């Protein structure tokens, strides 16, 4: 089946680590929202219109994608099982909204999984461009090229004054949401993050974490994105976000250095305890796994841990989610059984790392 290649628990290229600042910036995402002029938007359109929109957009992408060097796989959302939809959500290739399958809709995914185009989500068209690391301009370039190809062949809903017309007034204008995923363990430990978040929101940008049971963001992973889409050009929005993200990265670096200077032994102890838990535990909840992964990743960044690849945080945050664990185990799992499967996944993954990179434990533990 066409979808199978995207369901493998294998890292996509945007989960890898490439470029500057990848010790802190994990990945970059650009999303463009567009609608066609001749059809009502998804909150008001008929099922017949939904099918026509899907067909119009899909055929342009399948016929002409090669003009922007892209080859797409077309996946009709209603022809995919709910577990498979969930896997695509966990891999960030479709949104939970599209997965709900409210209307006829599809996703087209590029070969390298860096582009995914959702049809009949909240808007007729959602172009999503993903890059590893901190690459706002590059991610925008890919999304914009595809957008320009589509606008040659389709008539977008556009207004002289309001710009691109979207279902939600928070997207009107450029229809662009740009975001960078950041790993901020030191700003979280020092609680500086609680001051940074409200300060940024006053500047038309927003920082969000994933909150589970605890009060700290899961895995100390945060996403910074633009909130304004009207009154600034794409270039200005990207530039503002670029500058703000650079400042946060700089502050995180300083906070890391302060912890290293002030309590090196406590930090080292915390990092190695977490490595121990991930390497040997038999039961692992999402919260504990995320916390330990964050510690191990920090240990890698600080060169305390040398035989594990940096991309471990990006990848395992994806593959430790419920649908991937069940896909991996080839059966449905209760929450308790998932903790067992999650622990197994981490043990196996870390064992692999040791095999590939050579186990240095013998020399180090003298």
């Amino acid at each position, binding site marked *: 089946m066409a979808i199978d290649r995207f369901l493998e628990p294998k890292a996509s290229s945007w989960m890898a680590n490439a470029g500057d600042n990848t010790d802190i910036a994990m990945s970059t*995402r650009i999303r463009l929202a567009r*609608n066609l*002029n001749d*059809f*009502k*938007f998804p*909150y*008001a*359109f008929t099922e017949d219109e939904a099918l026509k929109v899907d067909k119009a957009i899909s055929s342009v992408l399948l016929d002409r994608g090669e003009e922007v060097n892209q080859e797409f796989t077309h996946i009709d959302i209603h022809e995919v099982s709910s577990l498979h939809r969930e896997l695509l*959500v*966990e891999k*960030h290739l479709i949104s*939970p*909204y599209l*997965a709900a399958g*409210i209307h006829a809709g599809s996703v087209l995914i590029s070969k390298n999984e860096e582009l995914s185009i959702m049809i009949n989500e909240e808007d007729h068209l959602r172009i999503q461009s993903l890059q590893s690391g901190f690459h706002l301009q590059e991610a925008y370039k890919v999304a*914009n090229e595809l*957008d320009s190809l589509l*606008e*040659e*062949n389709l*008539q*977008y809903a556009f*207004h002289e*004054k*309001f*710009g*691109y*017309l979207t279902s*939600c*007034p*928070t997207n*009107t*204008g*450029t229809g*662009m*949401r740009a*975001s960078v*995923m950041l790993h901020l363990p030191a700003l979280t430990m020092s609680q500086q993050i*609680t001051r940074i978040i409200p300060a940024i929101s006053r500047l*038309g940008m*927003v920082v*969000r*974490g*994933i*909150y*589970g049971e*605890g*009060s700290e963001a*899961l895995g100390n992973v945060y996403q910074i*994105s633009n909130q*304004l*889409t*009207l*009154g600034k050009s*794409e*270039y200005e*929005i990207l530039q503002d976000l670029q500058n703000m993200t650079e400042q946060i990265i700089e502050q995180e670096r300083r906070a890391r250095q302060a912890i290293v200077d002030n309590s090196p032994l406590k930090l080292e102890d915390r990092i190695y305890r977490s490595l121990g838990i991930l390497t040997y535990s038999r039961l692992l909840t999402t919260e504990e796994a995320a916390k330990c992964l964050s510690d191990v990743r920090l240990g890698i960044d600080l060169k305390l841990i040398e035989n594990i690849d940096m991309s471990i945080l990006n990848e395992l945050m*994806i593959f430790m*989610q419920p649908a991937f664990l069940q896909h991996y185990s080839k059966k449905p799992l209760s929450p308790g059984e998932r903790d067992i499967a999650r622990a197994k996944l981490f043990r196996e993954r870390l064992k692999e790392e040791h095999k590939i990179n050579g186990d240095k434990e013998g020399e180090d533990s003298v």
Partner: protein
Amino acid sequence: MICNQCGERPASVLVKQKRNGQLTERHLCHVCAAENHNLNLAFEQDPLAIHQLLSNWFPVHSPSVNPVKKEVTVCPSCGFTFNNFLKLGKFGCATCYEAFESNLEEIFKRLHNGNKEHTGKIPAFYGSTLKIKKEIEELRKQLKISIEEEEFEEAAKLRDQVRELNKQLEGGADHGD
């Protein structure tokens, strides 16, 4: 019970969340519950509960609001009323933007830090039609003047130019092959 997030669909799940030390309980529908998916930051929920903001700004049930004005604002294309838009926080179609235009400036200014006009990318197609439309407008003005001044030769020339541009507008949609 209606979903706490979208205020639209019936709630089917109770979500307990601890945020900054405070425990919150929210009743959500299946769609919004999926949006709050545990590990998923990639897809934004509405950055703010948009329909809630809108109904704070335009209190629908407030007796001080002129009820007559509210009734007439209906989108002729999709049938959304301004109240539908406020409750859902979403437009039904492109024409809604024109139907509700008198209220939108205020909404956009609040949502986008005082901004109310797009300054970014323009689709190539709209860029050229916009230019042609403005040229036609200009030619029509000149045409009117030349007719008033009985310069019929000049008027005929202008009329031909307008016709030519109108043809371009109509054929504009299938320029690319």
